[in-house]
């Protein structure tokens, strides 16, 4: 029995925003070997914006520290202003401290992948993002994947019972998650076989 998913990347497109020539060559090569041949590489956030305004890509890989802008700002721009704001975004970072991961999560990135890149990690993340059906959430302060796993009651706060929870998103009542908690939420879970 085949446990891992079989993925067909033929025809799938990806935008790679990364200024470091080595990082980009490793990433491009790994993706190419997965079968993802349709790649476009840019070095700056400005170039990424221009490209995304013209072309709808299936995956967006973004370095956290681009020469002209912070990768987090670019992620926020994609979520708020890009023609295809729901594109799965993988933020690539050499520094993966808690603040960096929390920042990426809050900006709306789907995942954070630490460099140097591991093909195993990358394949699993792509499978998780591509085959999963994670909902999106749009609020005044956040646009991105809905990371909550709890049921919060019927939509629009129109519950029939007094105990039904509304969908208002208020101030956080708990401290930010630790790295281990974030990893636990972000790591790939069992996928439905197709």
């Amino acid at each position, binding site marked *: 029995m*085949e446990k*891992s*998913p*079989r*993925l*067909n*990347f*033929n*025809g*799938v497109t990806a935008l790679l925003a990364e200024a*470091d020539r*080595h*990082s980009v*060559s*490793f990433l491009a*090569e*790994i993706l*190419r*070997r*997965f*079968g993802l041949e349709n790649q476009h590489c840019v070095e700056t956030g400005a170039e990424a914006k221009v490209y995304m305004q013209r072309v709808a890509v*299936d995956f967006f890989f973004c370095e956290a520290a681009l020469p002209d802008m912070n990768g987090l700002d670019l992620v926020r721009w994609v979520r708020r202003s890009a023609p295809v704001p*729901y594109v*799965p975004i993988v933020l690539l970072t*050499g520094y993966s401290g808690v603040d960096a991961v929390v920042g990426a999560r809050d900006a709306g990135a789907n995942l954070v992948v630490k*460099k*140097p*890149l591991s*093909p*195993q990690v*990358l*394949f*699993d993340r792509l*499978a998780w*993002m*591509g*085959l999963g*059906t994670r*909902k*999106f*959430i*749009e*609020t*005044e302060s956040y646009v991105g994947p*809905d990371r909550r796993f709890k049921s919060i009651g019927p*939509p*629009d*706060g129109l519950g029939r019972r007094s105990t039904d929870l509304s*969908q*208002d*998103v*208020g*101030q956080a009542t708990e401290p930010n998650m630790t790295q281990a908690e974030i990893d636990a939420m972000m790591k790939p879970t069992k996928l439905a076989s*197709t």
Partner: protein
Amino acid sequence: MSPTNLTKKKARIFVPPSNLKDQLSRPGGTTRDDAVKAAIAGVEMLREKSMDAIDQAIEAVEAVAQEGMKGALTESNLKDVLRNADEIVELAGTFRLENLDAAGRSLCDLVGLLLKVSPYPAEPIVVHARALRLFAPGRPSLSAAQTEVILGELARFRAFFEARPAGTP
């Protein structure tokens, strides 16, 4: 104004439109094991080029260190060192050159600390550059004890500048 007076906009929760799942699930494609195997082979093909790049990055750090010994380092010099050290870490990590990776990381941390002090001292960069060269690919391998001594010395530099209040010369 208390938070209760703020009007909160309702959150919109929805499944984003996407045909990615259908695309990836089409017949054909590759299994995880095959894809990973092919990717590892692909990265391995970049090894030779990467080793040359490591050498060039170390040379660049050495050049700044040498320049620094003649006079004061500038912020721009340190940023160059950081860029090269970052490149070394990236490449060493990819090809599992653990000692080089550790020395590169140490240099990154050190530059972060040095940027808070002025004038910028060159000696710690010189010592890190020597360590990078000793751990460079193609060099004779060092014993565990030698490696420990070198990495220990690098750690001492970091500890010194960590303990030093910002702005003290």
